[in-house]
């Protein structure tokens, strides 16, 4: 209103001065600056050069502007470096800023010329005007030239103690910049201490920037001392929480993100922290709100979930989260991705807020898809009617992805809420009637799942589904339809015709469809054997003889053999009762979820991936970073001891408790893809598939469950072992045959009989434990292990840790066929494992297992089963574990054996230098069953002739040459089996290094 403008105009004088000026500047600019964006002309650089060196100040300034504009649009103006630097000494701040901008861009490419600027920087750092001092220190940290960095330390030190807070807050960030260029320099120069002192600064912005710098530095700390030094203490956190009240919104985010890295030591402290953080939930800045939610979510883990405090805190969280949904769409998206996590962790928080996740017509598609996801998670019997009405509405929208997701969601509702299943099915049928192609296909896919969940209930709709057979062109929909036909073959009169029509185009189908088609034809045959023999023959021969896909061939052979040997068993396997499919889908694995909860608000929470998956590790960072995890609950009577324990377990800031970056063990793909589809139980129901198989096989031959059989074999590409070893119809699939039954079945035979003893026992060299199964892959079960040899007994030492929320029990272990026939000598004796408990156990091994040469040779694939699932991992057997005590031999035998082995089998390895002399080396090696047969000295060079016998009888002869003075060890190996050389070489190295 004019009245108000009048008031504004009469504002105090200082402001009055600025505003008209500002207006003048911008209007003036309007007529000029955009012309700098015109395209390059010939000779432009030359002209610019002349203008930069002009006598007139205004001309120089215009020239620098042109240079910056050219730089922005990507033109190379680096040749003007000296001319631009010349303009640097100008006393015009605007010009200075432009020149600095130029320097930051090009200094790296012209380090020698950048030196010219150093003096000006140093001088500017002492300028009486704090804005210029800060500008200089801000810019100099961005010039990544070693020669300049050296000049930076003194001015930076001064600026960190500057009287002006604006300079100090800029200097604080500069320490982080310098640390990125030269971390050791920062530590040597004591800048970390200076930074820590700034945490007590009287100015809130200085504190906030110091917090940001420290957080960043400690993420990439080079040494333990640095990491320790930057570790937050309870006292510091307390101070920061006080500073929170006075900071800018951004400063509050820095502080909250730092506070989230701290794990308190006592319940009271955690509660107090929550109380002090929760007022932030009412902040207008979404980042402040989400960071506060992160801190609270983390701390809640430590408290008694049933206490009034926790209940009321959880209540407080819901409204701010909902409010985030009225922000700008991009912020809504970030909020929704986070809410998706929060709802999985604590479903109660938003239980009552279903309606805010209803999709609005004008929501951007990314918001729509996320809302839909959350809507389904919040669906329950109480609100299903509302949800279903919405979903029906969504299924008529235009966006194909969204419509598909909505249709799928209807299916999920049916599976989740039994009482609504019927309504869902009829809704789906309505949708099928629309004949919109992708809607029909999506509906058929979900109806398949509904059939799975509620067998023999909705088969009346099959007729309608069959009407749409011709329109299905997507593999998943085709596969689903074929599954339905196979599953209900007895009720579909023309099932044989339908399948036959699919079979005609067999070669053109995708693998998933082909596999499904094969299975369904077999099902049909088992149900109606009389008139479908021809069909099954045709399908089997298509699969085994004409397909290139090994999975398909294998499945074909398995069915063929099953059918030809024992049709009754085939019936029991193929038509076995299916395990239930789970109600919830797409749930994140609990450990990952916990980690992501610690990253609320960050990119990790948007991607739903741990940071390690998308952030490149810093090359230099030597201090291992623990992945973040939620703290565990403290005992109510938390004394000092409990507190210490929590500190260690809580993924504390800087205190790396997790496993440092060992070379990752290769983990065999999850079982879904292995066992699951053999029986074709479901694309998603793999976890339970093994159980179904167990049921099937248990009924046929009272034998204990075979854990691995199919799973690993299908991975290895060989046909499944079969107890009766039938003659394969085509003769092409011999290979594996009979080994199955005897080798693996007895694993669970002798239950009980603890391992006991074994543990301890001295002597020799024990390698460190390696993580074989990280908790993330083991659904909470973490396995570390190593191989030990005590006298003749080879064993595997396992440390199992339960990181899941529930008890783990029913442990069993099995090995896949391996190069040396390693197998457990007795079952794994394990008591149930309580949450957070860890147990070390010794598993004695023998070498009577089935043999198959692996690549790499020493790979051992292991399966561990518990009440949750079956987990697969692979580890490497150290070669020395396979050296037997029978390696000693007569000198003459040694000599003749040596001669017998062809000379081309001899290979030499340099082992490096060691302090020990020949005798010591001989003794050391002897304790690992490397037998010294003879010793010879030639010109003071010691030669040891040694022999090793492996568990499978392979002999390795060795000549170990030790040159005095240099103590250089050279190893020559001779054996008939050269492929074991690398392993033996490794073993020597390991032993000699101790």
């Amino acid at each position, binding site marked *: 209103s004019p009245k*108000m403008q009048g008031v504004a105009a009469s504002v105090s004088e*200082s402001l009055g001065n*600025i*505003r008209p000026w*500002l207006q003048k*500047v*911008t209007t003036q*600019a*309007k007529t*000029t*600056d*955009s012309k*700098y*964006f015109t395209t390059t002309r010939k000779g432009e650089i030359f002209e610019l050069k002349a203008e930069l060196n002009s006598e007139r100040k205004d001309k120089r300034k215009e020239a620098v502007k042109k240079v910056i*504009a050219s730089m*922005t649009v*990507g033109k190379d103006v680096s040749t003007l470096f000296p001319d631009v630097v010349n303009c640097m000494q100008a006393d*015009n*701040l*605007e010009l200075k*800023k432009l020149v600095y*901008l130029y320097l930051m861009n090009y200094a790296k490419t012209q380090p020698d010329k950048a030196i010219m600027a150093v003096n000006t920087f140093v001088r500017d750092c002492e300028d009486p*005007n*704090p*804005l210029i001092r800060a500008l200089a220190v*801000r810019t100099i940290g961005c010039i*990544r030239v070693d020669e300049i960095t050296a000049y930076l330390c003194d001015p930076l030190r001064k600026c960190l103690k500057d009287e002006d*807070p*604006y300079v100090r807050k800029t200097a604080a960030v500069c320490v*982080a*910049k310098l640390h*990125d260029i030269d971390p050791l320099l920062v530590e040597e120069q004591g800048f970390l201490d200076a930074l820590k002192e700034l945490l007590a600064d009287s100015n809130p*912005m*200085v504190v906030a920037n110091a917090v940001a710098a420290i957080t960043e530095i400690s993420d990439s700390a080079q040494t333990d001392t640095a990491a320790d030094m930057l570790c937050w203490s309870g006292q510091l956190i307390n101070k920061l929480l006080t500073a929170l009240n006075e900071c*800018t*919104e*951004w400063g509050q985010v820095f502080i909250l993100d730092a506070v989230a890295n701290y794990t308190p030591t006592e319940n009271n402290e955690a509660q107090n922290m929550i109380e002090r953080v929760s*007022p932030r939930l*009412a902040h*207008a*800045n979404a*980042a402040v709100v989400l960071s506060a939610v992160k801190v609270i979510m983390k701390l809640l883990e430590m408290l008694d979930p049933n206490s009034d405090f926790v209940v009321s805190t959880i209540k407080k969280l819901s409204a701010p989260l909902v409010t985030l949904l009225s922000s*700008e769409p*991009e*912020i809504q998206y*970030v909020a929704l991705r986070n809410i998706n996590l929060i709802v999985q962790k604590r479903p109660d928080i938003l239980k009552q807020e279903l309606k*805010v996740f*209803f999709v*609005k*017509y004008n929501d951007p598609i*990314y918001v729509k898809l996320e809302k839909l996801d959350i809507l389904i998670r919040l669906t329950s019997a109480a609100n299903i009617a509302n949800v279903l009405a*919405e979903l029906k509405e969504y299924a*008529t*929208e235009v966006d194909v992805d969204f419509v598909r997701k909505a249709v799928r969601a209807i299916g999920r509702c049916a599976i989740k809420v039994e009482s609504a299943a019927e309504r869902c099915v009829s809704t789906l049928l309505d949708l099928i009637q629309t004949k*919109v192609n992708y809607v029909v296909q999506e509906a058929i896919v979900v109806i398949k799942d509904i059939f799975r969940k509620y067998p023999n209930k909705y088969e009346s709709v099959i007729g309608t589904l069959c009407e749409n057979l011709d329109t299905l062109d997507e593999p998943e929909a085709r596969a689903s339809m074929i599954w339905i036909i196979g599953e209900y073959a007895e009720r579909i009169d023309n099932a044989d015709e339908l399948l036959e029509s699919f079979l005609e185009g067999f070669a053109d189908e995708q693998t998933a469809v082909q596999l499904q088609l094969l299975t369904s034809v077999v099902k049909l045959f088992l149900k109606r054997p009389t008139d479908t023999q021809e069909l099954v023959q045709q399908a089997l021969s298509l699969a085994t003889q004409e397909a290139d896909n090994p999975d398909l061939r294998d499945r074909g052979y398995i069915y063929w053999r099953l059918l030809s040997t024992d049709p009754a068993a085939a019936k029991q396997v193929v038509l076995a009762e299916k395990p239930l499919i789970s109600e919830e889908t797409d749930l994140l694995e609990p450990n990952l979820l916990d980690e992501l909860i610690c990253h609320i*608000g960050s*990119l*990790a929470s948007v*991607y739903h991936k741990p940071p390690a998956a*998308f952030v490149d590790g810093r090359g230099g960072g030597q201090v291992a970073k623990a992945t973040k995890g939620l703290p565990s609950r403290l005992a109510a009577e938390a004394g000092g001891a409990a507190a210490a324990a929590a500190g260690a377990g809580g993924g504390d800031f800087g205190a790396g408790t997790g496993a440092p970056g060992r070379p990752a063990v290769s983990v065999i793909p999850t079982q879904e893809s292995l066992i699951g589809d053999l029986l074709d139980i479901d694309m998603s129901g793999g976890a339970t598939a093994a159980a179904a198989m167990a049921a099937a096989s248990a009924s046929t031959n009272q034998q204990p469950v075979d854990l691995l059989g199919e799973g690993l074999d299908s991975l290895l590409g060989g046909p499944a072992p079969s107890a009766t070893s039938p003659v394969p119809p085509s003769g092409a699939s011999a290979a594996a045959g009979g080994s199955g039954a005897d080798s693996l079945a007895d694993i669970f035979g002798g239950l009980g009989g603890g391992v006991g003893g074994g543990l301890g026992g001295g002597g020799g060299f024990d390698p460190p434990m390696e993580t074989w199964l990280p908790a993330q892959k083991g659904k909470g079960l973490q396995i570390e292990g190593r191989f030990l040899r005590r006298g003749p007994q080879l064993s595997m030492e396992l440390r199992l840790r339960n990181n899941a929320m529930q008890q783990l029990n029913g442990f069993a272990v099995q090995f896949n066929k391996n190069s040396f026939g390693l197998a457990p000598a007795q079952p794994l004796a394990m008591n149930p494992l309580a949450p957070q408990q860890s147990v070390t156990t010794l598993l004695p091994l023998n070498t009577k297992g089935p043999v198959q040469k692996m690549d790499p040779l020493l790979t051992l694939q292991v399966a561990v089963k518990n009440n949750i699932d079956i987990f697969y991992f692979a580890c490497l057997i150290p070669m020395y574990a396979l050296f037997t005590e029978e390696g000693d031999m007569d000198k003459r035998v040694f000599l003749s054996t040596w001669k017998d082995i062809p000379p081309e089998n001899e290979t030499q390895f340099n082992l490096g230098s060691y302090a020990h002399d020949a005798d010591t080396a001989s003794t050391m090696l002897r304790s690992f069953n490397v037998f010294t047969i003879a010793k010879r000295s030639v010109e003071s060079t010691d030669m040891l002739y040694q022999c090793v016998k492996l568990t499978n009888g392979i002999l390795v002869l060795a000549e170990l040459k030790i040159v005095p003075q240099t103590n250089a060890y050279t190893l020559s190996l001779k054996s008939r089996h050269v492929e074991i050389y690398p392993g033996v070489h490794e073993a020597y190295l390991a032993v000699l290094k101790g």
Partner: protein
Amino acid sequence: MIGGLFVYNHKGEVLISRVYRDDIGRNAVDAFRVNVIHARQQVRSPVNMIARTSFFHVKRSNIWLCAVSKKNLNAALVFQFLYKMLEVMGSYFGKINEENIKNNFVLIYELLDELLDYGYPQNTDTGVLKTFITQQGVKSQTKEETTKITNQVTGQIAWRREGIKYRRNELFLDVVESVNLLMSPQGQVLSAHVSGRVLMKSYLSGMPECKFGINDKVIVESRRAADSSSAAGATKSGHIAIDDCQFHQCVKLSKFDTEHAISFIPPDGEFELMRYRNTKDISLPFRVIPLVREIGRTKMEVKVVVKSNFKAVTKVEVRIPTPLNTSGVQVICMKGKARYKASDNAIVWKIKRMGGMKEWQLSAEIDLLNATDKAKKWTRPPISMNFEVPFAASGFKVRYLKVFESKLNYSDHDVIKWVRYIGKSGLYETRC
């Protein structure tokens, strides 16, 4: 933190490019252009990862604003910052468009230098920035002046300078509510909420401490409990239950949390004091009753009744969507003007003076071309309404706003205060 910030025009040409971190190379600028702006299939997320680099973008008219990072940074902060940056640029040079950005590129670089340091957001308050980013240079300023500026920029009350003087102390409060509704064709409220904002314009001298009182149930009750003397007074009805509220950074949040008191030292000039959300007992100003009948393949009949549920005269607009294959529309309405707008695929019905507690009807016959492409089915978008009414649909009331400035000689009584309530339509939709 933020590794770099780029501004593009709609063609993908770079207008501003500022790199803060060494891990962001020049190719990042091109990666965004190629994979997002020029993407063959429209990008469906505001966050995109390209070659292990994350790109956050917002779009304002034809301008793309994009932040890049290779770290696991705070995503909420990035978007908040991008919006803040749009706001700052807007207050410096008005509309965000290519022309203005090109004309002010030096200013924008100067702002970017100040707004972000090494990718960490610093002071982003427009009022404060304008005290020292003027494209003037500061050489002329005295030491006192610069110290004042730096204290201001980094200070505890970073949003207000000292020494403001007005001849007349005055303040304006606007309670602006946007009313959102989603109603089923049968008239069932699927979801309804009010998102309200309290906008304040303050022209007050010195460093005034303000106390703001509203009729929120929780706040009122706790105030009364704390103040037992007045508890004896009659309990007033007309309290509302606010679901959630958020405050400008000047409001002392810890005080709000413990005492339910809204107290603050306001920035000078205009700012958003508070935002709130309410879902209970909303008095919906209008109701729309639709009736759509498809008569064969080439004809449709639409009847729409609008009812007003309050006593005042206002201007309203109703948009009734029509199918894409509409060939002609005949409209009859009892009141106002209705026109078929082919470009919008809608019938737009405007009533200039909609009386209170009234009911008006529109009926239309829509002729359709024989749809050949079945897949392009009409999805029946909801009927929407635009209006502005002079009251708060949530029942939100300002109870008081007291001003205390102990150092200067003016009291609460001397301050002239204006309060206004506006209820606007947010997404006010009825499915048909």
